[in-house]
């Protein structure tokens, strides 16, 4: 039971949904795994809840190597990784990020788009999406626009979304063969938000070797560390270079101390994790 009352509508078309969302204190709902928790705690008090799950357009999924992956906002986390093999095959870092969101039940309701719109610094899907240069397609009564994920988050719980605007779909280009890891450090292995999360994706690992790195829970928003990527570009992956790469990541993050870990611990892990992940992927040259 939620302690206050509100109205609920489930429109069948985007147009009707956008009309409803223009009303005062109207909130969209997908899986509700963030929204309902906040409503139960009284932290968010909608007057109107607009359920987007009857809008067919929000359930499209499409992949080709030429145009990449596009999926609608309605796609549940587990549906994406269990029913569309190409997510695992062509976006391995994202696959791993999705797989560690909450428990199995959470992933049967929750969505990638809900995870992004919630804009938690601890989002487990954002780091991988940052490494894959994802873009979000937004729509409102004023029209549509596309926003790069690097520009979507503006602070904890804050995004560039305007009143009445929703995310319609996510597009991820396919930039070529890639390998990757999403590694989540948390207090317990079962269901917990990250103390720190790191996505490391390597596009064309046997050729040009474009290394991308993004983190959760070390800054007010999930962040990609372009400076470290530029440093390592074209360099041999000797231990010395990798350590310097890791040092730049360490120096670029600005974590806080909270119930899940101290700022010092997070900074240390920001340096250790890239070395660990590159070693696991057998990318570091032997010897010193």
């Amino acid at each position, binding site marked *: *039971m*939620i*302690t*206050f*009352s*509100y*109205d*609920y509508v*489930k429109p069948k078309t985007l147009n009707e949904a956008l009309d409803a969302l223009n009303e005062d204190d109207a909130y969209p*709902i997908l*899986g*509700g*795994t963030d929204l*309902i*928790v906040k409503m*139960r705690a009284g932290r968010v008090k909608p007057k109107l*809840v607009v*359920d987007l*799950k009857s809008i067919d357009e929000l359930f499209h999924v499409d992949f080709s190597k030429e145009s990449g992956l596009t999926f609608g906002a309605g796609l549940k986390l*587990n549906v994406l990784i269990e029913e569309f093999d190409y997510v695992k095959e062509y976006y391995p870092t994202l696959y791993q990020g999705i797989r560690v969101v*909450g*428990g*199995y*039940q*959470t992933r*049967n*309701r929750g969505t990638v788009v809900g995870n992004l719109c919630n804009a938690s610094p601890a989002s487990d899907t954002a780091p991988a999406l940052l490494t894959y240069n994802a873009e979000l397609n937004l729509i409102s009564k004023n029209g549509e626009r596309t926003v790069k994920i690097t520009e979507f988050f503006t602070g904890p719980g804050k995004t560039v979304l305007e009143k009445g605007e929703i995310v319609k779909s996510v597009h991820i280009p396919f930039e070529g063969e890639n390998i990757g890891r999403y590694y989540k450090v948390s207090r317990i*292995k*079962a*269901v917990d938000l990250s103390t720190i999360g790191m996505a490391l994706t390597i596009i064309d690992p046997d050729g040009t070797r474009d290394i991308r790195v993004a983190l959760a829970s070390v800054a007010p928003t999930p962040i990609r560390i372009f400076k470290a990527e530029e440093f390592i570009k074209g360099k041999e992956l000797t231990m010395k270079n990798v350590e310097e790469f890791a040092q730049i990541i360490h120096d670029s993050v600005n974590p806080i101390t909270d119930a899940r870990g101290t700022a010092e611990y997070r900074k240390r892990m920001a340096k250790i994790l890239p070395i660990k992940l590159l070693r696991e992927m057998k990318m570091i040259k032997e010897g010193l």
Partner: protein
Amino acid sequence: MKITFTVNNENVEVDVKPNETLLDVLREKLYLTGAKEGCGNGECGACTVIYNGRPVNSCLVLAPEAEGAVIETVEGLTKGNNLHPIQEAFLETNAFQCGYCTPGFIMSTKAMLEKVPNPTKEVIVERLAGNLCRCTGYTVILDAVKLAAQKMGGAE
């Protein structure tokens, strides 16, 4: 508002308010009290029901969202006086003490075994990670799930 959905193969129509959860409706309007409220926040899994074939936390489903859904609760498992093989397996391995978590574990197990009849330990742990038990220490629950898989025809 009135909603209709299917619960344990029966169509039901219930009068609900938008600020009730599916768990509230199951327990307080349909008297299906197997699903329990532990945390009310999606963290413990005591309220797990199978919802359109997948296990979900019914404390995080708004009642009106359930319009048209096909729902299974632990009450739907027994046929006459016969327990479901998963229930037998939990009994035979003593996989509970207070029992508060058990309906949730059983529903997560059922949903898993329907898709993965012979799960590895890793799969079991991943699929049941959203169900907490404060009593047993989990090892007997793992035994119960393995025994249930055997009883239901999955190979050892």
